[in-house]
């Protein structure tokens, strides 16, 4: 147990020892007279057959014989044994001499295999140590028979062990000095080749002693020239007195070093900005100066300053309020536009928290917005209704959260005042809804108007009819008839004006239903016949229904009838004699995929319409021929309404040019997409 604890301690230093063992050529290196002379001396002086310098290498579970005198084969050639054969490990573990008279009965080593294999009986081991006192191995004397070691034996081996230890110390010192020399030379070369300027100059005379390549290159002097110069010679901004005064603090030791920026003058007289770190080395009584050419840095600083200045002027003069705030919304910087927005001078605004200016119910949302900003997505914008300086405003705040070391640190904010925009929007919305309301009112008004005007007209017309029915003189009957006709005209006018208004007010609803086309056409014909009969002109009225016309069509019966009655009324009104024909058919379409269309035409042999006036008939209050106007009463609204209705039903109403061999003068055609 005692041994194991010690071994564990040794293991802590295994790597360091291993390195140093190899470096010190104590293991795995050829035998050397440095150590062999001691083992030889030991065998001779102690009169033993074998003496060893054994280095205990716990890491590799072995002891290595750095030197062996009198050892038998195969051990002499192998130069090592496993630790199972090691007495020396006990010397190392205890870092004490080990004296064994008879190994076979010694409790520490009685089962050691070296007794059998190396024929070890008596053993005397003295620790050999590294310069730091660590035991590395042992110088040991071995006898093949029992031996009581005398004080003299131990003393001799102790001295020899000390010599081995000294030898190791010598080697270590040599190694250390070599490696430090090497490092110093590497460092020196790095300094020599550095782009920085490195100067050494004497503390008393200030003359340069050593100047690196970087400095020589930058300044344009060779080393011989520089040795005649002092730092003052290459620092145009310093006089001798200035420099002496400046470095006095280093001389007195009140500061360990000085860092400053100045200019260096080249041999050709040109200068460049430099940053200098100056130290005084008291040991060598030398100043060392490390100098960096900061021309590039200065350029960057200048550019940065320019950019900063232009950004600052942007910040100052931008009409948009801009602020920089801490994460708790304390305003740290604010531009004049912000001062105007908040109505606070800059000294009152800075240090103020932004949060109280946010409406209370929006605060959680804003705080959440800021807390959700990430370095990848640091933007957060929000529209706030705020009362600023007593004025209600709609402001869009665009914010960028700045992160430092992954933590949010600042909020940059720009406000966009959209108050007027929002007012305009609200106004537009309210006027849109007002217009909608006005439209509703108009619809109701038109419905009422129709009713309110018809009711008294009803009484007037009824009474005129009554007079006609009564037993009164013929002249009065004629008067009643004119009154009745005038009333009819008034009614027609009213109906048309109201109808057109309703179409324009979108108050007309189209209700398409499957409708029997043929019976509907018969109705149109009946109505036209009645009118024809009433007018009493020599007109032959006919109805032609194409055989291909389907039985049912989906259409708004009432509206289509309204259009057809209008067309037949017009045809009969403007025809003196001849024919009026209603034709119903399907539009012949070569494109099969196109939706099928129903075409209803009314043709007449009336006065006709000049080609250039065809479209004018659909305008309001138009009758083409003024002379006819007197003869043919009408509001001039019928066709306008009919076309509006046709369009409303997704169809078209056109007046077509009859072909030259066609006997008709005018044909109006209504086309409807009505087949299902």
């Amino acid at each position, binding site marked *: 147990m005692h041994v194991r604890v010690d071994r564990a301690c040794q293991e802590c230093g295994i790597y360091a020892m291993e390195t140093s063992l190899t470096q010190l050529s104590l293991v795995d290196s050829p035998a050397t007279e440095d150590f062999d002379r001691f083992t030889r001396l030991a065998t001779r002086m102690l009169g033993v057959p074998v003496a060893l310098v054994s280095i205990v290498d716990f890491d590799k579970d072995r002891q290595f014989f750095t030197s062996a005198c009198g050892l038998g084969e195969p051990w002499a050639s192998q130069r090592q044994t496993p630790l199972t054969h090691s007495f020396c490990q006990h010397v190392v573990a205890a870092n004490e001499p080990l004296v064994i008279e008879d190994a076979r009965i010694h409790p520490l080593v009685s089962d050691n295999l070296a007794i059998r294999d190396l024929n070890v009986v008596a053993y005397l081991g003295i620790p050999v140590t590294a310069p730091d006192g660590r035991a590395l191995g042992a110088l040991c004397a071995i006898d093949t028979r029992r031996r009581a070691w005398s004080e003299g034996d131990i003393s001799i081996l102790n001295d020899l062990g000390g010599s081995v230890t000294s030898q190791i110390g010598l080697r270590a010192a040599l190694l250390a000095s070599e490696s430090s020399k090497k490092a110093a030379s590497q460092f020196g070369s790095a300094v020599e080749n550095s782009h920085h300027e490195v100067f050494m100059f004497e503390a008393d005379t200030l003359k340069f002693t050593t100047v690196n390549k970087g400095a020589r290159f930058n300044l344009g002097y060779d080393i011989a020239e520089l040795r005649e110069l002092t730092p003052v010679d290459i620092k145009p901004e310093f006089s001798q007195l200035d420099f002496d005064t400046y470095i006095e603090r280093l001389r007195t030791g009140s500061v360990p070093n000085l860092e400053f920026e100045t200019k260096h003058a080249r041999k050709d007289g040109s200068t460049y900005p430099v940053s200098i770190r100056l130290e005084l080395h008291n040991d060598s009584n030398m100043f060392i100066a490390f100098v960096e050419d900061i021309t590039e840095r200065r350029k960057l600083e200048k550019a940065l300053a320019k950019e900063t200045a232009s950004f600052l002027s942007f910040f100052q003069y931008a009409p948009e309020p801009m602020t920089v705030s801490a994460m708790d919304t304390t305003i740290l910087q604010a531009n004049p536009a912000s001062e105007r927005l908040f109505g606070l001078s800059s000294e009152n605004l800075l240090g103020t928290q932004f949060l109280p200016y946010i409406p209370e119910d929006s605060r959680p949302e804003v705080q959440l917005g800021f807390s959700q900003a990430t370095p990848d997505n640091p933007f957060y914008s929000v529209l706030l209704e705020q009362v600023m300086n007593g004025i209600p405003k709609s402001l869009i705040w665009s914010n960028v959260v700045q992160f430092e070391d992954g933590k949010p640190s600042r909020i940059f904010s720009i406000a966009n005042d959209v108050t007027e925009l929002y007012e305009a929007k609200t106004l537009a919305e309210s006027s849109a809804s007002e217009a909608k309301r006005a439209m509703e009112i108009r619809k109701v008004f038109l419905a009422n108007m129709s009713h309110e005007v018809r*009711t008294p007209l009803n*009484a007037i017309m*009824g009474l005129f009819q009554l007079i006609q029915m009564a037993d009164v003189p013929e002249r009065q009957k004629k008067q009643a008839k004119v009154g009745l006709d005038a009333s009819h005209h008034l009614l027609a006018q009213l109906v048309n004006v109201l109808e057109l208004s309703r179409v324009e007010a979108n108050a007309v609803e189209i209700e398409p239903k499957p409708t029997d086309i043929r019976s509907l056409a018969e109705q149109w014909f009946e109505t036209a016949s009645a009118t024809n009969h009433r007018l009493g002109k020599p007109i032959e009225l006919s109805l032609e229904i194409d055989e291909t016309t389907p039985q049912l069509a989906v259409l708004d019966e009432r509206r289509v009838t309204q259009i057809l009655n209008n067309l037949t009324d017009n045809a009969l009104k403007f025809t003196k004699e001849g024919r009026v024909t209603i034709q119903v058919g399907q539009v012949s379409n070569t494109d099969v995929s196109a939706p099928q269309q129903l075409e209803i035409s009314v043709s007449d042999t009336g006065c006709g319409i000049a080609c250039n006036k065809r479209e004018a008939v659909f305008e309001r209050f138009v009758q083409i021929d003024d002379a006819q106007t007197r003869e043919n009463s009408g509001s001039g609204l019928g066709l306008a309404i009919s076309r509006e209705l046709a369009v409303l039903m997704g169809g078209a109403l056109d007046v077509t040019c009859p072909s030259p061999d066609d006997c008709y003068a005018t044909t109006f055609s209504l086309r409807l997409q009505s087949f299902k």
Partner: protein
Amino acid sequence: MAAAKKILLVEDDYFTRFMMQEIIDTLGIDVDIAKNGQEGCERLDKNPGDYGLVLMDIHMPKLSGVDATQIIRQRPNDPPRNVAIIAVTADEHYHDNSVVSKHGMDGFIAKPITAVELNGLIDRYCGAA
């Protein structure tokens, strides 16, 4: 030969009432007048068997022609439950047989009315059979 039945004219507009009454008179039929739906219902309830035809204005104060018709159609007795009711109105919405029949009426004549139309109705509903 039963005597010709009477017409009940339910109409709130004075001019129309006067004119209609004159025409119906001229056509030789007796006419009773009600100024609104409420009065109309009362008249009918009082003498349910007297009337061959009700000429019903639609838009009237107190009780509209539509509501009055509904009440009449729900009366337990016939008459008056199945009396002929014709809408007489200037409202274009009711110038549609399918609309008026949905409201329980037998037909409509549009204002302005014509004596010819009225005569046709009288022949049909009030004629002495």
